[in-house]
């Protein structure tokens, strides 16, 4: 039954080619020696060297990294709490709470960005680094919640119950039993939040202020003026960093998942 049929193989090959060809082309052309982006002039790393002197781009990258780390950390804590709230608690207002978790996932970014900006103006909060962190946390904590919640809903509750029956206090049960079991999902949630924050253009454009230009805002303003080889190089570095992190994370998650909960299916 599990023999892959010809049509399925074709669908897989075409689908993956479609997903990867544009990225592969971008990476190859970032090593193009020619200034003309469409003419191949031999291999070269000159655009990477040029990047080292682009102070504005480096500053933007550092700002983005700072915002991504801070907001992902905050989102992981809040998102894990929200996931616990949804799977382990009964309280009034569960329905609106669940609605507020799912809505940001599909809400168009222009609306989220605009509404947060108007909030910051209304409460007279200076826009900059911190407002972008708040905005990104709000969006990404919902993704963390979804991932962690799936894990919490799947695992064996009897372990928690056994610990508590033996007199383990709830806080300790959480840190000794629950947290280690959901750790792969928490890590995956953190990484997803990190990459979403690093990637976001629209919400950051609305909520940023002077001195907090993020990498996507910087790339966007360059891209509007046309394709440049330097931008190809920035994007390649970006892809390499994120790609390495994701592959590492999925390897960690798979090995941890195997060692901790041998019978449960891996999360899709």
């Amino acid at each position, binding site marked *: 039954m599990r023999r892959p049929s010809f*049509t399925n193989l074709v669908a897989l090959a075409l689908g*993956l080619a479609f997903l990867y060809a*544009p990225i592969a082309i971008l990476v190859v052309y970032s090593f193009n020696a020619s200034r003309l982006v*469409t003419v191949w002039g031999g291999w070269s790393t000159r655009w990477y060297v040029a990047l080292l002197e682009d102070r504005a781009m480096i500053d933007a990258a550092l700002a983005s990294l700072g915002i991504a780390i801070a907001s992902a950390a905050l989102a992981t804590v809040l998102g894990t709490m929200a996931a616990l709230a949804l799977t382990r608690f009964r309280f009034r207002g*569960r329905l609106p709470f669940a609605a507020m978790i*799912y809505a940001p996932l599909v809400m168009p970014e222009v609306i989220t960005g605009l509404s947060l900006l108007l909030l910051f103006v209304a409460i007279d909060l200076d826009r900059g680094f911190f407002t972008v962190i708040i905005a990104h946390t709000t969006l990404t904590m919902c993704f963390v919640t979804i991932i962690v919640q799936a894990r919490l809903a799947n695992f064996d509750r009897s372990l928690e119950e056994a610990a508590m029956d033996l007199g383990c206090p709830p806080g300790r*049960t959480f840190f000794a039993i629950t947290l280690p079991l959901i750790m792969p999902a928490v890590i995956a949630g953190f990484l997803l939040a990190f990459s979403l924050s690093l990637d976001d253009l629209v919400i950051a454009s609305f909520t940023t202020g002077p001195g907090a230009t993020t990498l996507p805002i910087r790339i966007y303003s360059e891209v509007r003026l046309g394709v440049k080889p330097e931008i*190809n190089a920035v994007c390649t570095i970006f892809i390499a960093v994120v790609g390495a992190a994701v592959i590492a994370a999925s390897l960690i998650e798979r090995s941890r998942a195997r060692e901790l909960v041998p019978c449960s299916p891996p999360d899709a």
Partner: protein
Amino acid sequence: MAKGSVGTDLGSAVSRPHPALPCWRGRAGWAIVAAPYLWLLGFFLVPFLIVLKISLSETAIAQPPYVPVLDFTAGFRGVKDFVAGLSFANYFTIAGDYLYMFSYLKSLKVAAVSTAMLLLCGVPLAYAMARAPRAAQPLLVTLVVLPFWTSFLIRVYAWINILQRDGLLNQAMVWLGLIDQPTTWLATDTAVYIGLVYSYLPFMVLPLYASFERLDESLLEAAADLGCPRWKTFFVITLPLAGRGLGAGALLCFVPIVGEFVVPDLLGGSDATMIGQTLWTEFFANKDWPVASAVAVVLIVLLIAPIAVYQHLQTGEIEGRR
């Protein structure tokens, strides 16, 4: 909160949790619910109310650039002046100007067409993933998700490289003899559709894969044993059983695409803009915050129904998983 409501729970129509574990009921348990709840109230719900309010205001050359401003220091009088100052003028502006109407319609059309295209591309891919050998499936999922992790902006930008006039697509097509002359791809609707399908494909494939993968294989075997051809099994059994994933995937793409900004802005033409771009221009170029807010409110109203259906499917999904 968690403590008092254990017995009288009103909101548990969403996935019903286990009764709270005894010891989580104290102060710590309360904080676990309250922290994310308050955060979302403050930074998700309240901002919408502010958008609603500003959409009823008028532009002013001031800081903030709209009137009236709610002045609590003036007490009840302040509130009264504030309510009297509200007007629907911005909504009349939107309704009266066919530019906005066109923009909304165009966004809905683009979202509908690209969602249909995404279904056509996503179903075969997700199905093939679910039918692949078990051992290969985690790898396939990672491969499909990986591009989704690498910046959205970069993936759209990659297509500018390919679609521009002397780009690779034209070079390849001329070389293959499909066209004599380079055609214009960039700044057309075709480019927008390519960009949208490309960017949103993982969002479509993952929910579909999840439902195909969970499918009870004995049903397919039974159909095969009874002599049902494979294509027919697919349409009669597989697709209907994957309905939830189909719906979730379609909405997960449709709703954000309606408000999409990056793809049409970078790949599309400047003649017919989508509503996300209109809102952006209204806000950043025209600096008309009240009209931008009104545009946002109308957009939310348009999207409320699909978002509600999505939430319904999603909560059902979690229920089903248990």
